[in-house]
Structures are given as C-alpha cells and as structure tokens.
C-alpha cells in the first residue's frame, strides 16, 4: 500500500489520463508547427538540414535572424498567389457541389424507417473504408480521353471527338466531391434525423407549400449540420495533394501541390514552410469555426 502522506503528493490517476494524450499532441502536433514557423524564416542552404539557423549563439550573444524573403516571394511571385486563389476556388466549388449532392441523400435517409436508416448510412460510409488512393485512381479510367464516359458518349453518337475531362479542374471537382461525400452526408444526417416532424406538419397545416416549409424550417434548422459538413470537406480540400496530382492537369495548381513541389522537387524547406504557414493562416478561421462546432458536439450531452 502507498503510505497516505506519499499518496497525497502523488498525482491523481486522472491527471495521467489527461497528461499522456496532451503531451503526445503537444510534442507531435503543436511544437512541430512552431518549428515550421521557425524554419519559414530561415534561408535555404546547401547543408543537411538544408536551411540556416534562425537563432544563433555568436560571441556570447544570441543572434536572431529572421529572413522574410520566403514570405516576400509568396506575395511577389504570381505563381504562389494563383495557387492560393485556385485552391480556395476549387475547394469552394467542390464543397458546394458536395453539399448539393449530399443534402438530398442525407434528407432522404433521415426520413427512412429506422430499420433501413442504418443500412443506408453504412452504404454511404462503406466506400470510405476502402483506399482513398484507389477511389481516386478509379476515376482515371472513367474520365480518360479513351475512357468509359468518352467511349459511351461517342458510341451513342452524342459527341464526335472525346471530351477532355481528365487533367482539367473538372476532374479535380469530381474527385473531391466523390472522396469527401461521406464527410458531408454524415453531419447533415445527424442533424436532420433529430428534427421534429411536427414543425413541418404545423407549417403544412398553416398552408405552407412543401418548398416553403423546407426553406423556412428544415434548411434553417440544419444550419449546424451544413456548417460542420462544409468545414469537414473544404478545409482538407484546400490543402489536397493526391486528387489534383492524379486527376488535375499541370495547370490545376493547388497549394498542396506547390508545397509538395517545394519540398520534394526543389528541396527548399524554408519555402515549403512559408507556404504551409500562409495556408494555415488562411485556414485558421474555418478551423476555429469547426473546432467550436465539434467541441460543442463532444461536450453537448454532458450537462
């Protein structure tokens, strides 16, 4: 047995429950961001690691050298500005398309009899249990110039020459909507399934048309689900690398690809870090919104 005096000074086991995951996340998630921030202010050097130190100890003085050229390059070089703009555009349009596809699905599933709801929901989630990479790859064969869609359309005589879909932004939209659809359906469903039908019935009784009841009651009530779903799709889509790399063309510039290129092809770690920091700043507000929604969800049933 632990003597009572020692027991009082030993931390309560509950602190261990907090401390272990907390320390892990601080060490491998929070501190790495600070290191990225630091390296974004350093200069590219031919060395290992390939950057100069920001903080140096020279002649018993601490020297802090902040090199802003990585950030200046991001603003001055139109390639970077374009990449940020087109990332946000592609992610935004894909999110909107995903919402338009997912909302009817979530709505219909939420109105199914309870026994079939779970099966329908499982069928929505099931594809995301198979490899993401393979689901993206599947579209290459469909969208290619001599792929399925073009062969079908030409076989039916609708078009004479193949439509160029693969290696265009359209293919990237399709890929993002396809891969992220379950992340949009799930939060919408969780929200829609809780709605009180009597509100709609009351609206009908008061003479509302179905579309009026939808726009005046269902849609505003499902706002939290829409916000959560859009954030879940849009934030990762802005930094998406695999989909634009495989489905988009060389001109489908997205910031995840630029970061990858700076890191792997140019071996310019400081520039890659600066690209990451600016991406984080852009995503900060959506991430904060998402954090609040998510935490309310996690703690919501506590009180």
């Amino acid at each position, binding site marked *: 047995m632990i003597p009572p005096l020692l027991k009082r000074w030993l931390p309560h086991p509950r602190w*261990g*429950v*907090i401390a*272990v*995951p*907390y320390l*892990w*996340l601080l060490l*491998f*998630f*929070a501190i*790495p961001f600070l*290191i*990225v921030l630091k*390296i974004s202010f350093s200069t590219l050097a031919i060395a290992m*690691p390939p950057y100069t130190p920001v903080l140096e100890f020279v002649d018993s003085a601490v020297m802090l050298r902040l090199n802003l050229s990585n950030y200046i390059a991001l603003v001055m070089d139109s390639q970077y500005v374009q990449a940020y703009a087109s990332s946000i555009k592609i992610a935004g349009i894909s999110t909107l398309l995903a919402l338009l596809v997912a909302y*009817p*699905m979530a*709505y*219909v*599933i939420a109105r*199914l009899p309870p026994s079939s709801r779970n*099966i329908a929901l*499982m*069928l929505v989630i*099931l*594809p995301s*249990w198979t*490899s993401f*990479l*393979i*689901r993206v790859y*599947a579209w*290459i*064969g469909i969208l*290619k110039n001599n792929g*399925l869609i073009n062969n079908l359309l030409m076989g039916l005589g609708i078009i004479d020459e193949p439509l160029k879909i693969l290696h265009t932004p359209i293919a990237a939209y399709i890929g993002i909507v*396809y891969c992220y659809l379950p992340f949009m359906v799930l939060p919408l469903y969780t929200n829609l399934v809780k709605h009180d*039908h009597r509100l709609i019935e009351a609206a009908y009784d008061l003479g509302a048309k179905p579309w009026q009841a939808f726009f005046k009651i269902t849609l505003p009530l499902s706002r939290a689900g829409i916000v959560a779903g859009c*954030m*879940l799709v849009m*934030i*990762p889509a802005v*930094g998406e*690398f*695999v989909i634009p790399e495989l489905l988009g063309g060389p001109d489908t510039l997205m910031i*995840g690809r630029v*970061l990858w290129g700076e*890191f792997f092809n140019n071996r310019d770690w400081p520039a*890659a870090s600066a690209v*990451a920091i600016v991406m984080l700043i852009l*995503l900060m507000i959506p*991430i904060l919104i*998402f*954090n609040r929604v998510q935490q309310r*969800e*996690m703690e*919501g*049933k*506590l009180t």
Partner: protein
Amino acid sequence: MSTSPRRWTTWAVLGLGFAFLYLPVVILMIYSFNESRLATVWSGFSFKWYGALLRDRQMLEAAWVSIQIAFLTATAAVVLGTMAALAMTRMRRFPGKTLFGALITAPLVMPEVIIGLSILLMFVALGDLIGFAPKGIASIWIAHVTFTLAFVTVVVSSRLAELDRSLEEAAMDLGANRIKVFFLITLPIIAPALVSGWLLAFTLSLDDVVISSFVAGPSSTTLPMKVFSSVRLGLSPKINALATLMIAVVAVAAVISWWMMAREEKRRQLDMQMAAKDK
C-alpha cells in the same frame, strides 16, 4: 399530408447517390479481370494480373510494412484516444482545456501536407538537438498515431456521452474505486466504440500516402506510397487487381461486422422481451 418525401423521390435520390458512390469502384473491379494491358479496352477474362501482383516482391514487402504500421498505429491510437475522450467528456475543467480541445479536433481537418511537413521538420530538429530521431517505421508510426488519434477520440467520446452514468455511480456506491469502475463497467460498455475506433485508425493508417511520404525517409516504403508512384505513371492492371483484393477484404469485414451487430441487437431485444415476460 405526409411529411415524408414521396417514394419515387426517395428511390431516385438513393439510387443516383449510390450509383455515384459505387459504380467507379465496381468498374475498377471488373477491369481487374481484363486480359489486355490497356486498362480500358476489354479483351477477355483473365486472372493474370493477380498472378503478376502476387509475384511482385516489392509490392508484397510494402504491404507487409503497411499492415505492421497500421496495427501498431491503431492500438496506440485507441489507448491515447480513449484517454483523450475521457478527459474531454468527463472532466469539466482543467488547465489548458481549450488548447487540448483544439489539439484534439484540429487534426480531423488539417491538410495532410501540413501534418507531414511539420512532423518531419520536428524529427529533423530533434535529431539536431539530441542527436537522435525516430526513423523509418517508427517515424511513420508516430505521425500516424498523431493524426488518427483525433478520429478515435471523436468515436469514443460520442459513445461515452451516451453512456448511462448511473451504472458507474451504482458501482461506486457499492465500493468500487474509479479505476475498478473504469475497467469493470465503463470499458465493457464502450468496447464497441473502441473496436470501431481501432478499425478506423487501422484503415486511415493503411491508406495514408502523403504523411508517410514526408516522414518515411529512403529506407521504408509503404503500400500506398508504392501504389501512388505506379499510378502516377498511368493506369496499371496490377493496381486494379490489388484494389479488387482490398475492396473484397473490406466488403467481407463490413458484412461480418454488420451481421454481428444485427445478431447482438436481436439477442438484446429477445432478452428484453424475456425480462418483460418474467415480470
């Protein structure tokens, strides 16, 4: 007037939605049995790409590396994620809870390129500072635990929030201490969430290409990294065969887990009926 959508609208929406979700995968699977090298022209039924896949030593080695990493990742993520979920749902206030909450939820949406880059730079800085940094499989494992942890936490904390607290209180009234209550009462109740959290972490880890590419270093290659490098060069029937095998495994696992869940549910309802009759 009924508030439910009309029957044909329901079927149309679900039919189109599921066609969109499943057709690409089904087409991929069909073409894995194609004789021709050209992955889009059908020239006859054949198993030859499966043979070629099984003779590809590099691919098999990469698959084995990936499975090991995924197993270790899922196990660690479930332990840490359960702790984090307990902290989030059971402890109203502790110093730094806001930061903790942010650290738990941010990896859910953080772009993979940022996670990959930051963890790699962290390992390099660590190597600079203390002369030692995790390499190869260990570094991929740490990176994967970090990003899958958040998903496990979400799954487990939703189960914890639904849990009937009176069961725990009853055990405590009967003299069990907190640790005993956790292992005898709480853990068995949240076990299904732990299983699904484990499976989720396993598949996320098995699937990741971006984060692994950043942290892996030259010595270790995972299956997705191998697939990605060959897919980048264009269509390859061997990849179709690999995809079909992976999808088949997932489908079988899904059917089994669904069947087990259905059986469990049936038994519970039967128990409840019996209990009602005894009264």
